[in-house]
């Protein structure tokens, strides 16, 4: 069953097309990684998937429903997903707890006490229990990301998007975050889409990975990263990427 489907999707900014004719799907409950070299359009694709940029051509479907950011119906679809931005993107004028509470205040009828309880629960889930009163500026990079994750899961989303979750983290924090992503996927039953180029994360969490190529402006392959590595028919660029170029191919 499909969580997200992209059909002949073209993405870009202004007049510039970054990728075109993208066709892929994300199955419900799987962890899908969008990978590729720097500047190939991974984050741009994510922005299109979450509706921050309109598609240049083609369409995105959530389940059977077409996602068009300019359509008022898009707000309903947006509430089905949570996003963790690269730097956490915590609202700096609010405390960590207020960050997590805001979506709950806006979209639920919970009482203030219930919201407080839920916020503490979400913060505990990401290992930040008791730190709700802190300002985002008082948190380390890894903590900000985890606080951003607590906010992203505030409304129990069906789909979670992660933009470069490991960026700027030490290997240990990065591994913890990977484990957290898998735990949350299992606990919430959510579909997860991760944009990254960190090989360790790709092999640790991806059920399937999509490789974007800047030169051809399209998807080079879509599959389990371990299988892609073992399969000799995999595009040499992808094999080179997955082996850090150590197999000698370019």
């Amino acid at each position, binding site marked *: 069953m499909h969580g997200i489907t992209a059909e002949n999707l073209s993405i870009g900014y202004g007049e510039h097309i970054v990728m075109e004719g993208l066709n892929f799907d994300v199955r419900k409950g799987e962890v899908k990684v969008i990978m590729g070299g720097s500047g190939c359009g991974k984050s741009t694709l994510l922005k299109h998937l979450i509706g921050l940029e309109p598609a240049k051509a083609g369409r995105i479907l959530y389940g059977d429903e077409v996602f068009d950011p300019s359509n008022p119906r898009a707000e309903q679809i*947006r509430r089905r997903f949570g996003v963790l931005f690269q730097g956490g993107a915590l609202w700096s004028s609010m405390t960590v707890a207020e960050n997590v509470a805001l979506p709950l205040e806006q979209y639920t009828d919970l009482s203030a006490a219930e919201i407080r309880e839920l916020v503490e629960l979400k913060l505990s889930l990401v290992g930040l229990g008791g730190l709700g009163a802190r300002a985002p500026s008082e948190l380390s990079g890894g903590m900000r990301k985890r606080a951003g994750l607590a906010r992203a899961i505030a409304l129990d989303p069906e789909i979670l998007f992660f933009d470069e979750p490991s960026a700027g983290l030490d290997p240990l924090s990065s591994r913890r975050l990977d484990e957290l992503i898998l735990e949350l996927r299992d606990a919430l039953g959510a579909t997860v889409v991760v944009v990254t180029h960190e090989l360790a994360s790709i092999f640790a969490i991806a059920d399937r990975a999509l490789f974007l190529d800047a030169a051809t402006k399209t998807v080079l392959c879509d599959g389990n990263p371990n299988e892609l590595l073992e399969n000799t028919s995999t595009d040499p660029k992808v094999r080179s990427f997955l082996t850090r170029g150590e197999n000698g191919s370019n």
Partner: protein
Amino acid sequence: MAYDSAEWAGLNLWSEREVLVAEFSGVWRLMVARPDCVKVIEAAVKEQPNCKVLCLREDRLQAWDSSLLIFVRQACAWAESQGWDCDLRGLPEGAQNIISMASAVPSAAESDGSAQNSTDLLTRIGEQAISGQKRVGVFLEFIGQLAMDSWAFVRGRAQWRMKDFVVLLQETGPQAVMIVSLLSFLTGLIIAFIGVIQLQKFAADIYVADLVGLAIARELAAVMVGIIMAGRTGAAYAAQIGSMQVNEEVDALTSFGISPIQFLVLPRVLALVLMMPLLCVCANVVGMLGGMVVAVAISEVSVIQYVNELKFAVGLSDFFGGVFKSGVFGLIIAIAGCYRGLSCGRDASSVGLAATSAVVTGITGIVIADALFAVLFNLWGI
């Protein structure tokens, strides 16, 4: 044909059937003069017009750096423009790798479309006109969205936090009272000082109250507060929202389906529209007080005479006309600040530009609006 410079960046060019061979020798370093790529190739092509392939290779090349790469890239670009093939297999392996790496990813200039920017003056004017038209469209879209979201606010459906609004009211109003009072007091003082000196020549010192009262109530209080708030609050709005844009905080709001205009712009616009008239009243009182200090100190006018003359000279229409204008100025400043913040780029320097631009736009808007008000008030007999 051979180009051997004294500094040893050597280049030999000859043709083999349809292939024009360029062979590098000697030292190709940035500190060593190298031949002009296009000139030497075009000179060679004139002698051998049947060539269709450019073959670049090395022979006895002692050392090379980016100097060689510049030449090779220029030669490749020239060959491409002529529809020729370019053969780089004879170059050092390191140079081949760097050239292929550089061409693997589209350049940033191509990505943002700036590759098409022309240096031709007319083309640039045309491009600016087209981009100006687009900017007007984006601004009108912002105003339209703000109007729709204001309607949502009136119906009680706007997504915003009262706590943020209260903080904004505090920052915009009470925290600005000191600076507004100080500058208004000094302005009243200066006008009275200039006025008294002139009026004393005609023994008409008492009319200093009329001068200060009318100038401050009708024009100066509103304009002064407008300019102070454009520099203080308009810039702050642009910087706050611009920083949020840089840190993806605005994207985070959108991803939750929360309208940034409802959540960020509307409270700021409301705070400034509500606080500006109050600050204007404050500026009126303090400015007239400043005038009174000078009038009493350096002329024969007493406090009671000054106040009585003020009551006679400044009508309610003068006073409320100025206060009304300040509310409109508040709207202009808030829209300029928030619009510039939301249209801020994604880097730190864009935040500075957004703040500067918010102040310039705000002050320009205030002056234009003030001119329009002068005409309208004249027509309405205010």
